[in-house]
């Protein structure tokens, strides 16, 4: 199947008492796609991501992730996705190898698989010599790249990236995106949020959330055309300025 849908969302809604954090959103994401999930602070991105990764129960609507239902099969979803955020990623007081083994172990990978793939990953990251160093001794950019490798180590079908490149220097940021491209080329679907609008251009398709709803969803080129804008930054500002509710 070429256009296999790995994420399928219909009218997904999450209410906290009288506050509707996510308001009837619908979209789908194809296999191997890089899907940019943008929105101002408080637009509902985090809540939506939590529902899709099986951490939070929706109030209503439908969502299938990696072929599993978010209501009934959230444990199965968790086995088939990877997750990485700027804030929580690796254990600073464990070595690079220990981190990899720990995370891979969580997903029940055989020690043979872990051993072989660890060397492969370290080689790709040019980290073989640093394998037994504590993660906290690595520069931030390397940590983020390592965290991404760890998030896809168990070969998930989808990886969720929550602002993965915040504060990273421009060169490392591009190296990071190169890794994302390669992961997508290998068939992993990438679901990513970012505050860097130039990164939105790297996505195959971009959705922009405003006040809990998805106000725009298309390829970056088409969005720019629709909103008569020269950059994604402009598209984003045009949409997000309409927001009425306060964020966070």
């Amino acid at each position, binding site marked *: 199947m070429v256009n296999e849908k790995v994420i399928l969302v219909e009218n997904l809604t999450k209410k906290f008492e009288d506050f509707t954090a996510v308001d009837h959103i619908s979209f789908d994401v194809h296999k191997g796609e890089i899907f940019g999930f943008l929105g101002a602070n*408080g637009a509902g991105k985090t809540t939506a991501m939590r529902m899709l990764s099986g951490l939070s129960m929706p109030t209503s609507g439908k969502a299938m992730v990696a072929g599993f239902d978010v209501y009934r099969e959230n444990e199965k979803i968790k086995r088939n996705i990877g997750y990485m955020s700027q804030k929580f990623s690796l254990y600073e007081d464990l070595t690079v190898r220990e981190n990899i083994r720990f995370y891979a172990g969580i997903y029940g990978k055989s020690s043979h698989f872990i051993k072989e793939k660890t060397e492969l990953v370290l080689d790709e990251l040019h980290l073989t010599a640093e394998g037994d160093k504590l993660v906290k001794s690595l520069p931030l950019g390397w940590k983020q790249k390592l965290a991404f490798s760890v998030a896809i180590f168990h070969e998930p079908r989808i990886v969720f990236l929550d602002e993965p490149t*915040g504060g990273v220097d421009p*060169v490392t940021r591009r190296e990071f995106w190169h890794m994302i491209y*390669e992961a997508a080329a290998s068939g992993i679907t990438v679901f990513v949020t970012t505050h860097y609008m*130039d990164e939105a251009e*790297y996505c195959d398709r971009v959705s922009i959330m405003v006040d809990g709803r998805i106000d725009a969803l298309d390829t970056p080129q088409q969005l720019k055309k629709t909103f008569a804008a020269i*950059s994604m*930054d402009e598209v984003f500002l045009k949409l997000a*300025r309409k927001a009425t509710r306060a*964020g966070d």
Partner: protein
Amino acid sequence: MTAVKINNVVKTYGKKKEVTALSDISFSVSKGELFGIIGPDGAGKTSLFRILTTLLLADKGGATVDGFDIVKDYKAIRQRVGYMPGRFSLYQDLSVKENLDFFATIFNTSVEENYELIKDIYSQIEPFKDRKAGKLSGGMKQKLALSCALIHSPSVLFLDEPTTGVDAVSRKEFWEMLKRLKEQGITILVSTPYMDEASMCDRVALIQSGRILSINTPKGIVETFGKKLLAVKSNDMLRLLHDLKQCEEVQDAYPFGEYHHAVMKSDGRQELNNYLLKKGYGFELRETEANIEDCFMQLMKE
């Protein structure tokens, strides 16, 4: 007139001084300037700000702020600078108004006395003055923190990564506020990891791994790029990037928004065009101007 002058500042951390945060930094900022310190996390921005606000001592070198020595006259400096640390340092359990009143009192002033200065910013959050700071959105917290840092009418304002973690809309508003503050004659030093914010500053220092890569006006930095820069795009961007990196005429290639940027060794536009034509896929190629990010990457790789 010089507002901030830094001479050969060195700062290291660790028992054996094994981590170098700042190695031999020197520059000066004129009165009334909006000066940006731009670099990724871990470049040394926070260390530099803490040294200038007298919170840390440098290992070597010295600096003056508003003419006062940062070590000898640290008390005088604490009277006249405003400082907003990386995390918005507010009391989450105090209301907007209580935070502001508190900061006014510790700076021996009152909100009324300097209301004119903060009016522009504070009026935007005044409708929520009884709300606890912890319940504000990121953008509103940022405005309150800025009001608190301004309440004693400081002559130099230090803002450490005020826009980190804040969305694009709030970031834009924040820079507009800084422009207006600058018009009131306050010297502002602001650090940021976002390269695109450089264009908002009068002058910027690009900083990486504790070293200053370049200090100039945003325009001046761009002009020193000195290489031909081409923007290329195709339907298969990943393959295009591989091909660009293979091309002999290309010194460096990297993704840049919807295009890839190719830094050329010499002119080479025609050669690259021919090279890509042979690859047999459709592409679009045009010349473009370097921006701060291109310069930063070029300087980093030198």
